[in-house]
């Protein structure tokens, strides 16, 4: 397996007048060809900013990629010009978003919104693009695709709109699909359908998926590998079975503990004390230390490195594991 996407020490900061806000602070992440990687974390952990950085769609100013590399097929996206990046966006890397209700342009027909991508990237003419658009809509499960092409988005439900978004995103057969909380705004039954659809398409076209979510249920269903983020850093990385069998980082353990289970008869759900600190008030030392039940003195003074554990099959950023001395 070769790496399709490799983030190396990615730092995306927001330059505010008073302070430099490190929303993404040295993230390393690898996605293999055809692999589905879930990026997990609470709100404010920097997972959405990581995905927008890959797309080079950080609102700038104030946002800026200040350091690191984004290697896509060996090419560093950070160094590309805007024009070069436009050729990759929507073609090699495409993205679907959390809010299907507002992500489609209300004044353009559904067909037009698919056709324009095909004409732009694939250089199809209008009638070829239209035929392909109908095919794409059929592919994502619309039975009356021919009629749908001329409909406007407001006639569709949230789940249907997300299917349209997937049709748009997959229309140029991208190598990587970034899905930013694609099912958060949907009903539970629709969630499962959308996830199944994404899984099927990724298998069929060998598309890698970077799935951003805070829903561990979703993760267990579709992901091959899980990357847990906290305060702009990766705190744990493992294959999905390993992570669910035995989470190592206290934060991951906390996240797992807050999933309700039918088997255990608990009165209260476990929760992680406190909140994610805002980026301008990240603690010294381990960023999770103030909320960690196992924190000791060293955690509060030094930041642990992301270390290989269990023979390099997984990584964790915690002094309780691996090499007890490695700091970052």
């Amino acid at each position, binding site marked *: 397996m070769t790496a399709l996407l490799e983030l190396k020490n990615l730092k995306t900061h927001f330059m505010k007048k008073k302070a430099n806000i490190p929303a993404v602070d040295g993230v390393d992440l690898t996605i293999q060809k055809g692999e589905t990687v879930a990026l997990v974390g609470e709100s404010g952990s920097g997972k959405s900013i990581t995905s927008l950085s890959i797309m080079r*769609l950080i609102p700038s100013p104030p946002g800026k990629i200040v350091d690191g590399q984004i290697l896509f097929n060996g090419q560093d996206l950070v160094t590309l010009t805007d024009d070069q990046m436009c050729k990759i966006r*929507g073609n090699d890397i495409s993205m679907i978003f959390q*809010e299907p209700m507002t992500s*489609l342009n*209300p004044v*353009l027909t559904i067909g037009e919104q698919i056709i324009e*991508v095909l004409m*732009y990237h694939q250089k199809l003419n209008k009638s070829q693009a239209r035929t392909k658009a109908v095919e794409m809509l059929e592919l994502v499960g619309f039975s009356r695709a021919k009629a749908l092409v001329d409909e*406007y988005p407001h006639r569709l439900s949230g789940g249907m709109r997300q299917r349209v978004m997937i049709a748009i995103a997959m229309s140029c057969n991208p190598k990587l699909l970034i899905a930013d909380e694609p099912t958060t705004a949907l009903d539970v039954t629709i969630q499962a359908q959308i996830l199944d659809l994404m899984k099927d398409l990724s298998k069929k076209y060998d598309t890698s998926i970077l799935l951003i979510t805070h829903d561990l249920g979703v993760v267990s269903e579709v992901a091959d590998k899980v990357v847990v983020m906290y305060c702009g850093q990766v705190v744990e990385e493992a294959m999905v079975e390993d992570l669910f069998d035995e989470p190592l980082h206290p934060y991951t353990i906390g996240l797992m503990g807050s999933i309700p289970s039918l088997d255990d008869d608990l009165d209260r759900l476990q929760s992680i004390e406190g909140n994610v600190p805002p980026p301008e008030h990240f603690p010294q030392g381990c960023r999770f230390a103030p909320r960690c039940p196992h924190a000791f003195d060293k955690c509060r003074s030094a930041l642990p490195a992301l270390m290989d554990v269990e023979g390099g099959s997984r990584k964790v950023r915690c002094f309780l594991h691996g090499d007890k001395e490695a700091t970052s």
Partner: protein
Amino acid sequence: MVSYIIRRTIMAIPLLFGITILSFAIIQAAPGDPTSLMMDPSMKPSDKEAFRERYGLDEPIHIQYITWLGNMAQGDFGDSIIKRGTPVSELIMNRLPNTLLLMLVSTILAILIAIPFGIYSAMRPYTKLDYTVTVTSFLGVATPNFWLGLMLIMFLSVTLGWFPTGGVATLNADFSLWDRIHHLILPAFVLAVADMAALTRYTRSSMMDVLKQDYIRTAMSKGFKEKKVVLKHGLRNGMIPIITIFGLMLPSFIGGAAITERVFAWPGIGLLFIESAFQRDYPVIMALTVISAVFVVIGNLLADILYAVFDPRIEY
């Protein structure tokens, strides 16, 4: 859609009634009548009465109104009292093309300048160019038309002699297109300034709102260049609120240019309105009021129809 237009037109009829009744009453309530302004002071009271009788000014006001309404319903606006029996329709038709030309040119000028600047301001908010555009448009809104007109006449026409000081064409000269354009430039510019300024502000705020929307991010994620995203995905959405402004601008085609027309001695409808109001020329005033009212109704209707054209979510 067609039934909606018919419904709206029918609904406008009572509105027009109300407008005519009110304006009729208000004009009559103003002190004086045509006789007091045009007659020779040495004229005998009996002649004055005879004049009033001839134009029906001696009748009670409701009879006058009904007579006027009856004539108007047959397309007859009556004759001007002051201009010795010239039909009102002729007076208006002589003036209307001048006003329409002036308004059309100034509106196009305003749109051509305001919308690009508004869009650019919205794309790069809080930059030097945005601040410049903002300050300039506030100046434009705050500057009174007549003052700007007078200043331009003073510097560009009188001192530098670049432009004529007023009128639609050089007197007693053969028709020449350049001469007409030459006369049009200053009044059209003055009239455009205020619209331009307001339109820039509206465009900026509307586009800033649109550019924050999720579908703009979607369009960016498709790999389109910023310009294409803004013009194709942003502008059509951003124009929806601007349509209202156009709808409101349409009736000002009749009365809005009055002051500018006065400053530049531009023989248009606005100038006619002012003259007839001062002279209590009732038939002319009423005719112009009705026309303005019709324009208001048409403007609103047009805006509503354009909404449906621009925004597929709206159905009638």
